[in-house]
């Protein structure tokens, strides 16, 4: 049988500090994207100077009717119709992201396996 590991006993203050630490980590990661850049926003297409009309927006009468039922006139609808997402891919950022995700899982599975062998050795004895 493997030598049984006796864990340290944690004080109340230690428990409190550990709980707070993980919370601080969460808040920091929530605010990081704000510091880096704002994202998830749509870009409005370069608008025409002229006031938009349903004809200039190229919508059919039925579609126009549904916009109007929703309380939108041509000018208000133009803002939504003209908004576009930008799906340009930055290859370097993509590679970094892939490396981070793959690295995270590889690290986690490897360390977990090492810890798991300790657990199994204590539970079932050395092989």
């Amino acid at each position, binding site marked *: 049988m493997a030598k049984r590991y006796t*864990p340290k006993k944690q004080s109340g203050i230690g428990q409190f500090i550990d709980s707070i630490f993980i919370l601080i980590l969460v808040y920091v990661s929530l605010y990081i994207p704000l510091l880096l850049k704002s994202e998830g926003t749509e870009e409005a297409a370069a608008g025409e100077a002229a006031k938009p009309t349903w004809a200039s927006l190229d919508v059919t009468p039925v579609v126009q009717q549904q916009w109007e039922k*929703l309380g939108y006139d041509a000018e208000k609808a133009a803002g939504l119709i003209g908004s576009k997402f930008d799906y340009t891919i930055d290859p370097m950022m*993509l590679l970094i*992201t892939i490396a981070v995700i793959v690295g995270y899982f590889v690290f986690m*599975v490897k360390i977990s396996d090492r810890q798991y062998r300790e657990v199994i050795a204590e539970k079932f004895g050395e092989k």
Partner: protein
Amino acid sequence: MSSSAASAAGEQRISMLKVLNPFHVWALGVGIVLVGEFMGWNFSVAKGGAYGALIACWVIGLLYTCVAMIDSEVTSTVAAAGGQYTQAKHIIGPLMAFNVGLYLVMAYTMLEAADALIVGDLMKSGAEALGYAGLNTQPFVVLTIAFLAWLNYRGVFMTLTLNFVITLVAFAAILVLFIGVDPLNPGTVLKHKELLTDLPYGWIGVVASLQFGMWYYLGIEGTCQAAEETRSAARSIPLGTMGGMMTLLVAATLTWYICTGLMPWQYLGQAYTPLYDAASLLGNPVLQVLLFVGTLFAAVASANGCINDASRAWFSLGRDRFMPGWFGAIHPRYRTPYRAIIFLIPIAVSFAFTGLLDQVITFSILSGLLGYTFMSINMVKFRKKWPLDSIKRGYVHPFHPIPAIVLFVLCSAVYFATFLGYGASLLAIMAFYIAASVWFTFRRYQFVKRADQFTMPWPRPKGY
């Protein structure tokens, strides 16, 4: 698996009550998710157009079918609070289990915060409709979380019975709306022919829409958290989970069909309450009230289920000392993880008031996605360490390893979709989990009893 925990006194060993049936499991899973049909799914329309959202609905439906199949086998065999966390502990190891526990707590607590915000905004809209403009939403957000936490504190049976009733009402609201749009006569009320367009961004938009396609089903895997409190986990979990998936597939398809036949995709892609807007377009006050109530009930049911699941996961982390052991206590009278429930109240409220709803929702979705990636690895290891004839399983899912491989591939596609829309958030969230993993390895693991992490009555895993 021992289902007991130290009481507040630290001496007496007590366990959670086994009182739930498959209907409660269904109510837990569908209750958490159904709000996604009332709002959220439609952001996938903005990302890839109406057809893009439909493809996302089906592709992500396949992802979650794999999740449900895998979950049904593993949970019916590892029936304990903590769900996937406990599975990770027995199958992969402590660090993975710690991460999975965190995924669950973060995904559900942040979803709960978003649900509470929805309740607040609905109260404001309702007040405006009645002539009281400018209602402050914050007290409603706090009250929603506090009331539901109190319900969870008092007992799981009442909590999930309430969830069953309000989820059923919300689901019925979608069915009634579907009947209301006269589906047998296309073109009369629904204008699909005129409103549906080609893919506005091509196939890259379809891939991008996968991220918000998760809203159709996000949280159904939460059924596993009830494993320790069901009368028969081997029967209730697969039945409740697969039944829930079928309900959600029906609800998602009906929702897409109704909304895309009534609203231009550019409006639908940014609508806050698309199903309620659909009812408003029909000009029927009864339907409007029904969909208002349906949306409200769906948000409340979701927050309620999230409190249930997040607290079980946090409790399990505490019970095993992966997080401070103080949280691993069960109420001596109500048999609920009361300290975990109370601790998470202010955290959910603070998430709601950060003003970072986008980041909070992305954190929730990504935590769920990391959990699904874990499941594909977990399933392969589970069958490898304990082949089919070596231990008794409550349920054996067919076609292994195809569901695990499909799940892994689809998860990779959703990571890419998240990168397209929220690349910085993706990296920030990964940084959080990496930092937490390092912290666990070098700080918390010293407090963990090694052999206590394996409690199933199984033989030694193959290869160890």
